[in-house]
């Protein structure tokens, strides 16, 4: 029997929870069909999480592609279908494959499996990032390097901690409603690996603490810089990412297992710093959002 999972019209970090909710009760060896026919838009989180989801299934899943041509065309330009074809049985009309000429795609969906993939990501994004961050987001010139440093560190976390490969994508776009229609740039990095809790437990075992679980593992790692490695130099990558986020009024969120931790800026008061009891999903799914800087900021 095929279980149909209905995808929301707009696929982002928050709406993806609807997919996780539908997926949770379905055993991994059962066939699923992700129905994206009515989906009109997807963020980098949506695209990378979709690929990650397929990697958690024992039975190859199916994907019905968006009927809207612009949507499908964008997914194609973002290199989503190039990778999805290896993971999903695709149904529906695929647009002709094209390179991402659109300037808003800073980094197409890219696999992160080996160290050299991080080099490739960094080499590829620098030129495009400079143009977008300075011209569209009005950030100072030195932000490009720091943005790329943050991207590099987040990608390395996949290789070092996930135990599997992951996916990264970066896009700039204009928010329609939030932040008064400001431009933002969004980095999403998703994997279906061991996740934060198992990563910490792999070195020290479960903590003898009533609260021990995904949320506490996230707190320890993200907020306190704890690492499974004994090397005292570890944990600096995430610390650097947090500094970058703080400096540029950005937002950082990471979902792992059944919890999600977010460093919530003032411009997004509706979000919560910690969510627990979410539908379980393996690995870690990270999103960084950097907003356009207004002239008086």
């Amino acid at each position, binding site marked *: 029997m095929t279980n149909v999972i209905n995808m929301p019209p707009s696929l982002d970090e928050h709406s993806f929870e609807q997919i996780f909710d539908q997926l949770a009760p379905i055993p991994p060896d059962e066939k699923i069909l992700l129905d994206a026919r009515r989906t009109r838009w997807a963020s980098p989180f949506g695209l990378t999480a979709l690929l990650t989801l397929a990697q958690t299934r024992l039975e190859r899943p199916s994907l019905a592609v968006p009927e809207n041509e612009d949507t499908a065309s964008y997914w194609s330009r973002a290199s989503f279908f190039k990778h999805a074809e290896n993971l999903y049985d695709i149904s529906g009309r695929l647009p002709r494959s094209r390179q991402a000429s659109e300037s808003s795609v800073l980094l197409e969906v890219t696999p992160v499996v080996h160290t*050299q993939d991080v080099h490739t990501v960094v080499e590829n994004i*620098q030129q495009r990032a400079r143009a977008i961050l300075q011209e569209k987001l009005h950030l100072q010139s030195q932000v490009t*390097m720091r943005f790329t*440093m943050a991207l590099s*560190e987040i990608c390395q976390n996949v290789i070092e901690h996930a135990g599997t490969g992951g996916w990264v994508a970066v896009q700039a776009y204009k928010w329609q409603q939030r932040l008064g229609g400001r431009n933002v740039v969004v980095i999403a990095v998703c994997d279906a690996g061991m996740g934060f809790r198992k990563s910490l437990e792999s070195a020290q075992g479960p903590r003898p603490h009533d609260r021990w679980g995904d949320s506490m593992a996230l707190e320890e790692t993200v907020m306190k810089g704890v690492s499974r490695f004994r090397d*005292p130099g570890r944990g*600096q990558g995430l610390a650097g990412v947090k500094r970058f986020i703080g400096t540029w009024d950005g937002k950082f969120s990471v979902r792992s297992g059944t919890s999600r931790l977010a460093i919530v800026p003032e411009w997004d008061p509706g979000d919560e710093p910690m969510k627990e009891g979410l539908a379980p999903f393996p690995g870690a799914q990270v999103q960084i959002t950097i907003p356009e800087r207004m002239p008086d900021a």
Partner: protein
Amino acid sequence: MISHIDVSSVLRRSVCDLYSNLVTRPTGAAVRIGIEHHLDEIGDKALAVLDFSHVGLLDFSCADEIVAKLLMQYVSVDIPRREVYFVFYGMNESHLEAIEAVLERHDLALVTQLADGASALMGTVDREQRTAWEKVCELGSVRAKELADATGVPADIAERMLETLWRRRLVIRQESGYFPVRGATAGLNPGGLLADGTPGGGGVELS
């Protein structure tokens, strides 16, 4: 012996011909090992100018592997690997940010040479150490008594301060006194130890 090490060349030689960015821990470890091999060949007492001019990006993880782990071997143990002094040259603002973070994490310090040839301290250095270091740079070479006279601290404290700076490899100790650690760019002549106008060129014995 003075040695100029182009970090970007070490990256290309050790990891990949096409890379210009220092990112990831494995890359950092490979570059550090490349630098160590180079240092192994230049004698027991040496000054190495690590030139970052052609390095694009340096991320935190790579900075930890290259800078912190390199320094820890030579400056922060009781019996360091050898008497090697470092000058970090050609660093841009983002390099500085990553390096400053890792120095702070490990309580390390280093000497960097700025574009105008002036030297500066980076990392964890208390006020007394910084004052003493600046005085050494100002005077060119000092003995404990001269530092004591110049700063107004007792001679034994001045001696201890210079010894600490030397142990951290922030000043060079010679029989004739303590000298600032400087590269040879901009034609500087650190305490008479260097005469070469090219970065780390030549090769002058540190006695």
